[in-house]
């Protein structure tokens, strides 16, 4: 279960980074700096892929675990 908790925490961290990235990209776009838009989208996509991998890991491991509840 420690592995699942660790993966969940990692997903949460990646999500916070993605939120920051989206707000910063929007700020740059509104400021007319289009150069950062594509790299930011690539990084955000990579973070999303990592989240998907971690989620599939949790899904795989969670099926075999005895206690699957958060609360």
């Amino acid at each position, binding site marked *: 279960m420690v592995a699942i908790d660790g993966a969940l925490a990692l*997903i949460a961290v990646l999500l916070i980074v993605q939120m920051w990235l989206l707000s910063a990209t929007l700020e740059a776009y*509104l400021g*007319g700096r*289009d150069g950062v838009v594509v790299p930011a*989208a690539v990084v955000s996509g990579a973070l999303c892929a990592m989240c998907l991998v971690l989620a599939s890991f949790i899904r795989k491991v969670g099926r075999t675990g005895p206690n699957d509840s*958060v609360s």
Partner: protein
Amino acid sequence: MTLKTKDGSEPLWRDEFSVRAEDERLVTRRQFAKFLTLTSVAMAAGNAWIVVKSWFRRPPEFPRVTVAAIGDVPVGGVKLFNYPTPNDPCLLVRTDADTHVAYSQVCTHLSCAVFFSPESERLECPCHRGSFSVTDGSVIAGPPPRRLPRVVLERRGSDLVAVRMEGHGGEPTR
């Protein structure tokens, strides 16, 4: 666990505390991970949407507008005008005898109107004490995230003509 009165009916406090902990639905780790991952997909989709928007953004068209005659504004003086549309307030500052600069009057923080302070020689925003350089519009202090859009001026005879804006993100305000 069931709490009943002696005659077998539900106790009176059950009306006030009608939610049973054991009946509450547990959020599993898998469900929580799924929620977080879907949010992550939404963030990536948001970034992708900005890319698409930037591809289809038309470069703004700026008209040529006569802002003022050179002698109209004294040194240290200010003239307000609207550019590129009547809904975009700007201000022209004569910083010395030969130099005129013009910027959008809309603060890049929360869109308050900035003003020129001759004492500090800065463009000040009164709302949250943001200040911008009168030389290039860059942020000197306060919360504004980016510089003021600059109106590019050209001298035509004795007139100052606004020809375009720099650092103006989107299309002119309609």
